[in-house]
């Protein structure tokens, strides 16, 4: 084993690997921070550059882009309320309110610290538990995924604040919006109305930008300009105390990310929402979530970055790509004549060790590059809104267009923006809408796949201990929510009387 480790180290310890990894993380952070440029797009565009590189260097370049991209999405989510990636959509819930209070640097700092810790834990988990987690992940069939996602939807109660029923209705609207496009079971159209641009469904990015960034811009022009109160934390980064106050949340979020990341097809966004939900439920500052709570940012970022290393588990251990990015990385392996899977651990173990070493280094790179970026990017929050918001709107237009090279997506973004603005004015929370829209496709696919397997019998959703585990958790959480909700209403009623 020592010999193999040494061989792995020699494969990894080349100047070009160090440069490629750093460059990858940098590209990822920049691309992730620009709404419309997605991480899969960046990884795909980087793929041709790996053809001439050695396998380890090429794969580390792609991994760097992937890891940087997941973190980078949080930057614009915090600064301009426009998540750069779907994974960062949960970060806006507390990140942007913090920026509005003048605490952008603090939010960016804690996002970076959480991302690095979660990334590190995810990498360690990949190295130590790849085999165990891969076999656990294989136990997740469609029924288990359905119960898991259904459980994740309980977060709606957490992000709806005092408007629980409106939040649930908002989530329903998000779930309905996610059904637009071609039905995957029968291949028939749903809500297309002859518009071919809708065949593939609505893309996440224009919907995310429209729902969060555009209403903020519209609202700025349609209300009295309020001068910011002097905030003692303005311009100050996150302190050690801040980090340790969020530490438990970060660790929990990281492990949620690791477990969900190991399950093919789940992705970073559900993990971020689940981590956020758990943090809100257990935190003593739970009531501040959604109003600019630092722990909320930490939970979301730990949740989505915890996925980064773990998505490599099914890829390396089983040869199964869990998402689009790992599918591209699988392609990179194959281009270099390698086939990930159990055999790789016996035939090319030194290459696996070399990749593990590079992955560990990527967390350090992420920290360094993130710190440098924050230093310059956090200045954006100092730009007056009358100048910043028009620029943001233009960036949103370019970003929405870039997703599919289609002006139709720009129209969708504005439509979502107007919807988001109307929801803002009617006090209908938009976060549940987003959760419904993001989790909707996974929920429906797993629901129908399960029923296809069981030939229409609902018994499949109660057939395994994993399903029961999530049902029990769901019932407990819903029960607790309604109990807390009715108690708070009762208290409010008595106070008014």
């Amino acid at each position, binding site marked *: 084993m020592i010999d193999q480790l040494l061989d792995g180290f020699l494969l990894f310890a080349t100047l070009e690997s160090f440069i490629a990894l750093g460059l990858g993380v940098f590209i990822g952070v920049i691309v992730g921070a620009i709404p419309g440029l997605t991480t899969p797009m960046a990884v795909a565009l980087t793929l041709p550059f790996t053809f001439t590189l050695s396998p380890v260097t090429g794969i580390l370049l792609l991994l760097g882009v992937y890891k940087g991209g997941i973190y980078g999405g949080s930057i614009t989510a915090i600064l301009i309320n426009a998540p750069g990636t779907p994974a960062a959509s949960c970060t806006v819930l507390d990140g942007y309110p913090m920026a509005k209070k003048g605490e952008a640097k603090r939010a960016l700092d804690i996002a970076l610290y959480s991302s690095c810790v979660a990334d590190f834990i995810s990498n360690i988990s990949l190295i130590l538990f790849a085999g165990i987690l891969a076999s656990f992940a294989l136990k997740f069939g469609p029924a288990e995924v359905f119960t898991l996602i259904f459980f994740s939807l309980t977060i709606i109660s957490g992000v709806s604040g005092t408007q629980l029923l409106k939040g649930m209705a908002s989530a*329903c609207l998000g779930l309905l919006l996610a059904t637009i496009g071609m*039905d995957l*079971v029968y291949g028939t159209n749903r809500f297309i109305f002859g518009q071919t641009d809708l065949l593939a469904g609505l893309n996440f990015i224009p919907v995310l930008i429209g729902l969060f960034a555009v209403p903020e811009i519209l609202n700025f022009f*349609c209300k009295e300009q309020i001068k910011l109160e002097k905030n003692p934390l303005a311009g100050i980064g996150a302190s050690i105390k801040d980090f340790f106050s969020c530490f438990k949340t970060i660790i929990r979020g990281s492990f949620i990310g690791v477990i969900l990341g190991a399950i093919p097809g789940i992705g970073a966004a559900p993990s971020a929402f689940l981590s956020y939900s758990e943090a809100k439920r257990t935190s003593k500052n739970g009531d501040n979530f959604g109003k600019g709570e630092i722990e909320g940012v930490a939970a979301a970022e730990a949740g989505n970055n915890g996925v980064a290393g773990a998505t490599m588990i099914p890829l390396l251990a089983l040869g199964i790509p869990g998402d689009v990015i790992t599918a591209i990385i699988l392609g990179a392996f194959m281009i270099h004549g390698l086939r990930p899977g159990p055999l790789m651990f016996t035939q090319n173990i030194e290459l696996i060790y070399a990749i593990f070493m590079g992955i560990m280094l990527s967390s350090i790179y992420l920290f360094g590059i993130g710190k440098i970026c924050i230093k310059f990017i956090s200045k954006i929050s100092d730009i007056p809104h*009358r100048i910043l918001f028009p620029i943001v709107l*233009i960036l949103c*237009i370019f970003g929405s*267009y870039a997703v599919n090279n289609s002006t139709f997506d720009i129209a969708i973004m504005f439509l979502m923006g107007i919807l988001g603005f109307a929801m803002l004015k009617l006090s209908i929370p938009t976060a549940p809408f987003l959760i419904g829209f993001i989790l909707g496709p996974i929920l429906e696919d797993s629901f129908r796949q399960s029923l296809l397997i069981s030939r229409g019998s609902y018994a499949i959703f109660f057939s395994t201990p994993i399903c029961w585990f999530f049902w029990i958790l769901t019932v407990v959480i819903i029960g607790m929510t309604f109990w807390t909700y009715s108690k708070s209403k009762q208290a409010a009623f008595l106070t008014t009387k």
Partner: protein
Amino acid sequence: MKSKRLPKQDTFSAVIFIFFGFFLITFLIPIGIIEPDNIEFSVLSPSYYPRLISYILVLIGVGILIKNFTTGFFENTILIENKYLVRMIIILALILFIIFALPTLGIPVVSVFSILFLMLLGGERRVIIILSVSILAPLFIYLFFTKIAQIPIPNGLLERLL
């Protein structure tokens, strides 16, 4: 801005949810979802899941209505103050302009015009700032997307120039 209590506003949301739910069930789903003939189990039908959610939406709407009539605790905000209504209409007109002018004018021209217009609307009066930001910001974003990210941006009027 906090304002006088407007109990009808929650009712308004509830009515929207109920109306939209029924609209989906009775109109949008039947005409918007093509049902194949060979459906073995009704739960696998493409319309089953959207229909289920639509019913839930209606139920939630009814729930909000009942809550309003039984408790009456809600404090809401005025949607848009009259003095800002004109601004809202102007911005909506700008959005329509952007959507419809994009294919002919191109993203760069529309961007310059939109930034200039919005900065003026937002209260910026320094000519140098207005001109430099409205030209340089779209130019920088345009160069990034076209030269670095290699995304072909529709140039419209400037097709020959760029």
